[in-house]
């Protein structure tokens, strides 16, 4: 079994998804607007399967999604990680945040830790991400991480997306 490592940033701990995160998944995916870019809205049973599948992804691929927990109050506020579902041509850096926690730079902070993990621990040359053209927030985040569009690709769902390559970030000052 893959052990899911803990990553720390200035304000966040990235840790393995746990049974106690079901409420977070349920609430996130119940909100049609907040989860619209993530396949939502989902019923609670589907959100539970999502939590289980996010754990299983680590077993199958050796990487996956973490839960983002705020260090100051240990509150779980979203998730971040790298996914590569079978049948998709490339892996993807991904992040999700409860709507009330957006706009504070948490997704960028977590993303930098995940990219660093991929480059240093997994020894990947780089990390990629992609998003729908209309997802301006994700595009801004990818650009903020220093991402550059390297190709345009049509995915198995028939949607054509820009694919960004994200460089390894500069070392963070010790948290």
């Amino acid at each position, binding site marked *: 079994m893959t052990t899911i490592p803990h990553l720390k940033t200035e304000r966040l701990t990235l840790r393995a998804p746990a049974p106690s995160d079901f409420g977070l998944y349920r609430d996130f995916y119940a909100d049609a607007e907040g989860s619209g870019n993530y396949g939502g809205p989902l019923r609670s*049973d589907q*959100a539970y*399967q999502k*939590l*289980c*599948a996010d754990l*299983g992804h680590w077993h*199958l691929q050796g990487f996956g999604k973490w839960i983002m927990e705020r260090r100051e109050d240990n509150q779980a506020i979203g998730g971040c990680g790298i996914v590569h579902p*079978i049948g998709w041509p490339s892996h993807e850096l991904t992040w999700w945040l409860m709507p009330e926690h957006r706009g504070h730079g948490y997704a960028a902070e977590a993303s930098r830790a995940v990219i660093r993990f991929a480059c240093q621990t997994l020894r990947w040359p780089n990390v990629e991400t992609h998003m729908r053209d209309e997802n301006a927030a994700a595009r801004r985040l990818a650009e903020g991480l220093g991402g550059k569009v390297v190709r345009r690709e049509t995915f198995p769902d028939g949607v054509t997306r820009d694919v960004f390559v994200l460089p390894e970030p500069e070392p963070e000052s010790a948290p």
Partner: protein
Amino acid sequence: MLETARLSLRKPQAGDIPAWTAFFCTDRARFIGGGTDTDAGRAWRAFAAIMGHWDIHGFGTFTFCDKATGQPLGGCGAWFPVPWPEREIGWTIWNPEHEGKGYVAEAARAVLLHVFGDLGWTTAVSYIDPANARSIALAQRLGVARDDAAERPDREDLVYRHPAPEAA
């Protein structure tokens, strides 16, 4: 991990996915969320969820294999996702060529001994679609009793309650 006369039961692993996917994308999987209108990607995610269920609960679905060859034949084990009112014993057999040989009953008996014995359960149910005649017949071979008063995840389902197995 569990053993029977002909089978070994172990945690699911990545190598099971081809056989699982071949099953999941056929009509035989229609009672467990698969079917001919699904695809390999959904089968993969469903299998990932089966693996993650073990992390959440510490118990889950075993893959049962031909003990002699190691070939994975199907899944059988304990299943307790949201919104299940009770812990369930479930089973699937992936290749129709392996049906009718008593493998699922053999695996299920080992699972029942395990959950009532090692895990200390005092009861277990199986939720079965009334149209799933093969599964109902198997449950009956295991000695279940219909429990029409029990809550169920889908009101169309039948609830079958397993007796505590006699020690082997």
